[in-house]
């Protein structure tokens, strides 16, 4: 969670701290990938990889702590579903609080990225 996040309120701005930026980035991507439809852990990683054109390659091992934290914060809800061969799989879906959190994260990231480009400038075409 970024330093400016208060569990009682939405994220307002991102701090220039590598750890919180990475976490906030992961959270935003996971929530966005769940915004369309519920997904299993492995589908989430593939969806993010596909949407980013391969730029963001998620190691599943790093996915679990983030997913479980988001679930503990009630931003997503995981349910066990039975699939073929009786195998159980964990499927995650976005909650109403998660949708709000995603919206707040989008706003914070827009501001952050715009400010970053103000500082570093853009490549001339």
């Amino acid at each position, binding site marked *: 969670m970024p330093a400016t996040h208060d569990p009682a309120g939405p994220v307002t701005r991102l701090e220039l701290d590598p750890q919180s930026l990475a976490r906030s980035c992961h959270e935003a991507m996971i929530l966005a990938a769940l915004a369309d439809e519920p997904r*299993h*852990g*492995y*589908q989430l*990683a*593939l969806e993010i990889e596909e949407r980013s054109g391969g730029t963001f390659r998620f*190691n*599943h*091992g*790093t996915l*679990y*702590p983030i997913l*479980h*934290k988001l*679930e*503990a914060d009630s931003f997503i*809800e*995981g*349910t*066990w579903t*039975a699939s073929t061969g*009786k*195998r*159980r*799989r*964990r499927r995650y879906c976005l909650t109403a609080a998660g949708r709000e959190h995603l919206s707040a994260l989008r706003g914070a990231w827009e501001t952050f990225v715009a400010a970053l480009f103000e500082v570093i400038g853009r490549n001339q075409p």
Partner: protein
Amino acid sequence: MSRFNEFLHRTGERMALPKATRGLILVEIASDLEDLFHFYLQQGLSEEDAASRAEEKVDMSDEALAELVRVHSEVRSWTERIGLGAQASLERIAMTLLVLFFVAAAVLSADGRVLIYLTGFVWPIFAILLLLVATFAVQMASFSDHPHPRRLREQLATPLFLGAGSVVVGFLSAGIQLYQALMGMAADPPHAGILFSAAVLGSTATVVCSLLVALIAGFLWFVLAGRVARFEEAVAEKLWEVR
């Protein structure tokens, strides 16, 4: 025997978490491993390479594992750290003490002497007690509906809130009683001593009642926490069996 059993065993050994929690996480990892394995098979990899790639992709770094343990430690209660066997014994002791308390309270209050110092302020506390018992009964009954373990854990806070509510009501009532006594003493100085004694006895009785209800809430929460932990363990074992 799953092709990933050894990997899962190694990963499980690195998780300093209660058995039930660890089991649920491992079932989730196992499921993702199988999905990834089939995904890599479809990509044209051999079985051996697909299994190896899936394990590589799911392998957790020490940092990720520490973070996962931290997330789950936040939502686990201290009761789960004492072990389910010891907890079950403590629950039985707690329930026995609770029953003994109610029997003793019924016997002592049979002639009405214990209750003479109670004032009308005690009714909200009794209402909280009734709510507490009803909540406990509903939550115990809900186990048979095979609920979502997470929902059960979320409901665990209810007895604690009610217990805290009882303490707040008790002390507020005591404050009001003492304030009323002070006003009475100012208006009727000759009877100040009697008024003050009556207020102290009344407010003390109210606070004692509220603390007893809070204690009962604590006992009931302890019993529920144990049931939820055992329920989670049973769910984890069941998921593991059908994996």
